[in-house]
Each structure stands twice: as structure tokens, then as C-alpha cells.
């Protein structure tokens, strides 16, 4: 078995193809123009881009949470591009997602215990009697108190909710997770905690991860490789060490140059980055 877990070949996604208004209105905006991408087992890959780059769309397409117009997505060698919902179901356990807005991604009507237990029981990850113990272990691992299990999502803080989101994804013991902009709303110290946690979990569980973000500095902290997206196309990809040391694409260079480091640099502001 090859160690490539996820492979995208020429993936295209078009929005608004659903025939609206009696089919009179021509719709369809292409947001992804043929993306090629590979993620190996246990590898953390960054997908970075500015707003409108299609990075979140790509993340959802990989998990088959959005329709793919053209191209192929392979999971562990199997072409899942046209899988029905029923055929996807057993695979769902193996590929999970952590969402950007933890408030919106947790059902406001369910207690945390139910949010965590239900997916495990549905996928029969373990015997019903064992679920409680597993949840307890993991909740401890992500740094939450057990009492949080009896709370509703709105009773937790933003950072705590994000940990619940991470725990939910990891409890299914997946091989792959998509983390979609999961630290963008957090303060730096909370962000560092979340990144630490995620990186540790990936290492301990041998998880492969697609880390979607807009901040190259954050990508640098957690990822081995990086794909840079612009207007729905991959403009550069490669090992982080190499990409950050010597970016080949102008756009990557511009993105890097635009990041202000917490270290006064009298020339930074004047340095022209993007020939716009």
C-alpha cells in the first residue's frame, strides 16, 4: 500500500450549478480550477491563501462535503469522487473535520457529552460501556475539565469550544483531519495552546492533516508541507523549509513579505512586495 492517503487530481468545483429560477438563469462560478494535491499518511499539510482563494472549498471537497464538478479525489487509493452518501459512510469515520467557528459547529441544543458520544456510538468505535472512559481520557488530553461534559456549547468559552471540536474529530480515531482556519479568532496565547494540542495529537495518533489557514506563520508552526492557493489554483507547493527559505512564486513571496514580524524592521513598511 502506498503511503499516499489523499490524492486530488485536477479537482474543479463550481458554485451555483443548481438550476434555479426554472432553469432560466445561467449559473456557475468556478472556484477551483484543477487542483492537484497529495497528503501522505501522518503528514501535516498546510493549505494557505487569502479570501477567495478557494481554500475552504477545497477542504470540504476533499471530505466530499461539497460537490466536485471535475477531477478525482482518492482516499487510500480509492476514487471517492462519485461515492454515494451511503458508500461514504464507513469512510467518514476515517476522515474528519475541525471547523473554524466552534460555536456554529456544535449543536446548541446538545450537551457536550452527547456531541462527543453520539458519533462514537454511531460508528461503533468501541462498546457502549467503554465510550464514557474514552471520552474522559480524551477530554483530559485536550485540557478540559470533566464537568464541561454536562454543559451546553454556549456555556463554554471560545477556546474551550474549539477543544471540544478537536476532541469530536479525534474520538473517531480518523486517519485524516481537515482543520479549517481553526485558530483565526483566537488570541496568540490561546492560539499557541490549540496549535500545540493539534500538533501533539497528530504526532501521537499518526494523523494526517490538511491545515487550512491564511497565516503563513501559523502554517509554519504546524505543517511539514504547504500548498499556496490563489484564485482557485495552486501557485506553489513544497516542503515548508524550502518554500519559506526560497519561495519560487511571486505570490508566495508577496504573502511572506506582507507578514509583519514582532521585531521592528525599519524597511519592512517601505519594501514593495506585490507588483499589483
Amino acid at each position, binding site marked *: 500500500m502506498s503511503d499516499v492517503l489523499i490524492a486530488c487530481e485536477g479537482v474543479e468545483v463550481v458554485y451555483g450549478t443548481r438550476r434555479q*429560477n426554472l432553469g432560466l*438563469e445561467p449559473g456557475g462560478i468556478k472556484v477551483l480550477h484543477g487542483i492537484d494535491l497529495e497528503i501522505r499518511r501522518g503528514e501535516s499539510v498546510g493549505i494557505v491563501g487569502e479570501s477567495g482563494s478557494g481554500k475552504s472549498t477545497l477542504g470540504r471537497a476533499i471530505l466530499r462535503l461539497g460537490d466536485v464538478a471535475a477531477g478525482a479525489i482518492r482516499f487510500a487509493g480509492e476514487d471517492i469522487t462519485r461515492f454515494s452518501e451511503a458508500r461514504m459512510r464507513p469512510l467518514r469515520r476515517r476522515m474528519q473535520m475541525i471547523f473554524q467557528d466552534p460555536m456554529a459547529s456544535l449543536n446548541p441544543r446538545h450537551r457536550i457529552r452527547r456531541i462527543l458520544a453520539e458519533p462514537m456510538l454511531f460508528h461503533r468505535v468501541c462498546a457502549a460501556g467503554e465510550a464514557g472512559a474514552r471520552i474522559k481520557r480524551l477530554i483530559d488530553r485536550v485540557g478540559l475539565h470533566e464537568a464541561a461534559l454536562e454543559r451546553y456549547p454556549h456555556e463554554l468559552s471560545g477556546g474551550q469550544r474549539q477543544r471540544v471540536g478537536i476532541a469530536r474529530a479525534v474520538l473517531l480515531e480518523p486517519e485524516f483531519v481537515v482543520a479549517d482556519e481553526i485558530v483565526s479568532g483566537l488570541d496568540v496565547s490561546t492560539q499557541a495552546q490549540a496549535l500545540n494540542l493539534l500538533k501533539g495529537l497528530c504526532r501521537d495518533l499518526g494523523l494526517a492533516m490538511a491545515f487550512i489557514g491564511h497565516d503563513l506563520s501559523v502554517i509554519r508552526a504546524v505543517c511539514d508541507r504547504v500548498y499556496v492557493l490563489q484564485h482557485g489554483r495552486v501557485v506553489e507547493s513544497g516542503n515548508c523549509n524550502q518554500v519559506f527559505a526560497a519561495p519560487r512564486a511571486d505570490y508566495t513571496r508577496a504573502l511572506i513579505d506582507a507578514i509583519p514580524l514582532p521585531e521592528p524592521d525599519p524597511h519592512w513598511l517601505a519594501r514593495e512586495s506585490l507588483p499589483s
Partner: protein
Amino acid sequence: MIVSVINRLVVAAITLVGVGAIVFVLLRVVPGDPIAMMISPGASPADIAALRARYGLDADLATQFWMWLKALLSGDFGMSISLRRGVLSLLAERLPATLELAFAALALAVALGLFLAVLGTLARRTVCEPLIDALNGLALAVPDFVWALALVLAFGVFVPVLPLSGRINPSIDEGFVTHFYLIESLLRLKLTAFADVASHMAMPVIALGLPLAAVIVRLLKEALKEAMVQDYVLLARLKGMSELRLILQEALRNAIGPTLALTGVQFTFLIGGTVIVERIFSYPGIGNMAVDAVINRDLPLIQGLVLMFGLIFILVNLAVDALAAFFNPRLRHG
């Protein structure tokens, strides 16, 4: 833009045909025999059959519907059985009365609604606000039917200052050329007649307008409140604008669009409400006529009336869409 207009019109046409079909089928299964209600006791079976044939009631359902539709397209709405007159001319005679009523109520509701919404926004976080909200909640919860009867008690019995029924005092004969009495009397400066028509309309207009005004107040006030905490209002406040000017110049134009769409729907409810309110005040509009038509099993008239209501509904909705586009620069520019 053009596509969406065409789309709207197609949907409107489907809706109208649907309305026609439903009412048509519904009426054919009515147990009451419309012919039985119009014949004199001594009519022979041959007479009855002749009458049936005359009103096309002897054919099967599909044929009847087809004939009706064909006639409709050529502008023939048929004959009223109970009133023995053309449906179209009856509608033309009664519709203006209802239109005057509905639009007067709309005008009242919009004026009152705008005023109270702005006042409520100005008075937010003062003791006045909960008071306005409570009164508004009351007006919102209680429907036109109840308001109409409450007004009957108040201004018909306890302080009898307003006429309880009809549209105009029969002793006033101005020889109206149109059926728009209110507008015509005003344009021709017949002020006595105008005052009389207006006083007859006062109670039904208030009963119909009050709930709609309450809807407008609630929606608009909510939208204004939301707009007033936006950063652009904050910046305008920093520029030194007065509170009233902030509301009128900055917030209102953004609040009015969403309010308008829902007000349009509510206006169609208001038009629906004319049926019972006209009944209560014996006001000679199409609503009152509709109740009589149903009680008399007057099929052609019912069909014509329902279709008329459907048409009004669709026109109101199209007008609202157009207005909403006008108030929203985003829609205006495609």
C-alpha cells in the same frame, strides 16, 4: 435582471392558474345547488334543465373548466347567478370601494408605523420604549376582526360619532361618474360628500390599518435598532449629526428595504381582511360581495372574485419587489 423579471411573471401566472383551478374544482363539489336558489317554487324540471344549460352547468368538469378558461381569456367572466348581472361589471363597480379602503388603510398604517418606529428608536432605552412596545404588541396580537367590532362599540354605541354601516349617506347624491367616491369627491371639491365618505371609511380603515401599522413598527424598529449600532452610524455620530438625523439619513434607508418586503406580504393579508371588515360595516366592496356570493352559491361570481383577489395579491407582490429593488442599491445595480 430581465431573466428574474420573466421568472417572476411565470411564477405569477402559474400561481394564478393554480388559484383558478382550485376554486373551480372546489366549487363543483359544493353540495348546494345554485340553480335551486334562483328558481321560483313552481318551476318545471324542463325550466331547471334550461337554466343549467344556460350557465353551462350540464357539461362535465374538465369541459366546464376549459370553457371557463377560454371565456376568461376573452374577458368574459360569466354572469352572476344571484344578481343576474355580468361578473365583470359587478367587479368594476365594487372593486373601487375595496381599493379605496385598502389603500387608505395602507396609508394610515405606513404613516403611523413610520412615525412610531422612528419615535420608538429615538426613545430607546427610555421609559417610553417599553410603553410603545407593549401597546404595539397589543395592536399586533389582536386582529382586524376584533378591532372592527371594538370600534363599533366605541364609536357606534358609547360615543356615537361615526356611521356604522355603508359607504355614503344615501341622501347625498353627487352623481358620481366613477366608483372611486373618496377620490372623486375630493377632486371635484365636493367636501360634504368627501367628509361623509371619509367618516364611513374611518372605522374600517382603522381596524384594517392598526395591525399593519403594528407590524411595520415592530419590523422597522428592529431594523432601525440594528442599523443604529453599525459602525457607519457611529462614524456619522462622530461627525456631529443629531439623533433624529442619524435615524432619518443613515439608518432609515437601510432599514426600509427588509421592512418593505414583509410589509408587502402583510398588505395582502390586509386585503384579505377586507372580506370580514366590509361584512361588519356592510361596506359595499368586493369582500362583502364575496361573502354573499358564497352564501348564495353564486359560482361565476365566486370564481371571478377569487381570481380578482389572486390578481391583486400578485400585483402587490410584484410592486413590492420593484420597490425593494429601488431601495436597495445592491439590487438596483444587478
